[in-house]
């Protein structure tokens, strides 16, 4: 495996749009990640006609989320983002690889032990309309973690629920109403309240804002940032919205067809994107600056089927710069500068 390509030197940031980057720059992972995935692989088996096909949902996925850190996970729909998040939460059993929680291997915990783990790891869902049971009051939904994990009952439970609701900016009266009485943003607040009920250390936010009105998205993101500061939460923020990811993430990971293609500090990704896929993704985001004339790199064709991923680099069917090697050998994820790793033979 040659390593001839010169890793591009960290280019000085374009002056136009780094205002939001002042304090960022990729916080280093402080003494041990809270959650870590090592070589996570998830294969599903699907029967197509009489043949059993393997769906490569996630392949050899490495990620570590430090305490208080937000890692953004970006990729097209169906690229395995959600599977990655669910595998880290034990909701999907990995075919291979390990999941570590505070350095402890939790991959093979029993169902019962994983249930107890739920106090520490939680999830915020994409669609607040279906994440709340329509037949149960908001208060009942939010109280569920307490009922399952604690001995809080009666008045104590009630006041704990009201405290939670107020924490996410919902009126105390919301507890007695059904989800249909609330807007998407309000429902998402309730979903967040439920996720944070037991003060978890790590939260996977799976497209937590994509189902919401644009005007509401910012409110929810800001709420999540506030709560993070308050409780020292770590987030894995899954999204295809690059603007939101940029706003909230310390580090950003880019996935393509079940594999990580690039990971680095926010500035590494947004100002020094190296993988052709990352570049194409970023070039598709309109920049609110008439002076900026970044070339749009079009992505042609569809995402190949994860049942039959391309050999070599999985991006080779759509890559504008692919060379012969990309069709035969899988590019390893290599560190190009501290904390910035890329899986590409060319760039």
């Amino acid at each position, binding site marked *: 495996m040659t390593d001839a390509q010169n890793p591009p030197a960290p280019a000085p940031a374009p002056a136009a749009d780094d205002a939001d980057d002042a304090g960022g720059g990729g916080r280093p992972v402080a003494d041990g990640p809270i959650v870590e995935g090592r070589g996570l692989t998830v294969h599903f088996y699907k029967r197509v006609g009489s043949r059993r096909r393997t769906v490569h949902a996630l392949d050899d996925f490495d990620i570590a989320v430090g305490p208080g850190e937000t890692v953004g996970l970006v990729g097209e729909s169906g690229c395995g983002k959600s599977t990655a998040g669910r595998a880290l939460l034990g909701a999907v059993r990995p075919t291979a690889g390990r999941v570590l929680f505070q350095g402890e291997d939790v991959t093979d915990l029993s169902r019962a032990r994983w249930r107890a783990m739920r106090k520490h790891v939680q999830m915020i869902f994409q669609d607040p309309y279906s994440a709340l049971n329509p037949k149960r009051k908001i208060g009942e939904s939010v109280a569920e973690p307490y009922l399952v*994990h604690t001995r809080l009952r009666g008045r104590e439970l009630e006041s704990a629920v009201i405290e939670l609701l107020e924490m996410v900016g919902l009126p105390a009266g919301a507890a007695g109403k059904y989800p249909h009485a609330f*807007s998407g943003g309000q429902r998402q607040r309730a979903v967040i309240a*439920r996720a944070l009920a037991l003060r978890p250390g790590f939260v996977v936010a799976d497209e937590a804002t994509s189902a919401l009105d644009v005007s509401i998205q910012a409110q929810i993101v800001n709420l999540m940032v506030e709560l993070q500061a308050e409780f020292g939460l770590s987030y894995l923020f899954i999204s295809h919205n690059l603007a939101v990811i940029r706003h909230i993430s310390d580090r950003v990971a880019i996935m393509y067809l079940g594999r990580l293609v690039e990971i680095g500090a926010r500035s590494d990704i947004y100002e020094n994107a190296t993988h052709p896929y990352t570049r194409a993704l970023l070039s598709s985001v309109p920049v609110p600056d008439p002076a900026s004339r970044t070339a749009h790199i079009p992505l042609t064709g569809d995402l190949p089927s994860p049942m039959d991923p391309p050999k070599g680099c999985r991006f080779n069917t759509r890559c504008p710069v692919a060379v012969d090697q990309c069709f035969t050998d899988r590019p390893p994820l290599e560190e190009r500068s501290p904390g910035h790793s890329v899986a590409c033979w060319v760039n």
Partner: protein
Amino acid sequence: MSPPTGKTPAVNPPTVTDPAAPATHSGLDPGADSGEARTLADLRRHLLKSKAGMAGVAITGLFALTAIVGPWIPFIADPAQQSLPDRLKPPVGWGGTWAHPLGTDQLGRDLLARLIDGARISLLVGLAAVGLAALIGTLLGLVAGYFGGWADTVISSVADVQMAFPGVLAGLIFVLAFGPSVWIVIAVIAMSGWMVFTRVTRSLVFTLRTSLFVEASEMSGAGSPRIMRRHLLPNLVSSLITLIVLELAAAILSESAFSFLGFGVQPPQSSWGLMIEQGRDYITHAWWVVTFAGMAIAVAVLGVNLLSLWLQSFNDVAEREQIILDRPGM
């Protein structure tokens, strides 16, 4: 903190004034509410728009009322009182007197009194049988749908076998083994009806269990019994009620059939099916004995079916919208 949205002015012309959900339709997702605000007022308003529904409610209500207060209705004769001189008296209008408004049977018993008494048995047997079937069937359907795998394979196979097995034959076997009685009829009807509940529950749970709120509950660490009871079952209730009413009609019919065949309710108890069986020999010269009992069965079953149909349309949101908008009369 103020709620994020909410005060969006209502653009849609208010077709229905829904007091339960004001000012929250921000235009985000109009289908999201899926008509959860089903208050009693809602139910009544929709009932008033459907003539078939009203007929169903009226007939079923009358049927139930008759069954409940039957023995206390004044001026009604004792249903077991025999009077051979008064046998096979015709009803009023065909030469009969008001002493026996619907005439008498071959033993001189008052037919109206016997019809009222039969309503009681029919409703009792129907409710008990359907209740039993719903209980067993829903439980098995929940388990099959939620756990899948071998539990589903076993339960679904048994349900399929039962589905293919003729209910009358099963009834015959049971009656031969245990002797005819009301309890056997209830057991047999329940046995030939549970799999309907299993199938419906199973298929609903199949979709429900992949919904986010079930996943969220699993993520909260909730166990299977809790998820079934708190999350799956509440979302099945409206479908199950409709199915219970529909099955009730079938059960009433089955009870009549069993009693007619002699496997079911035994004299001196009365039942509509039994009345037809007893009046069968006199059909050529005393048509009223079988006719009124047959009509009672037909009308009761029709009423319960109409009620179930209307409940179904009420539950189905799309259908419900249609009732409001397109069919002002029917």
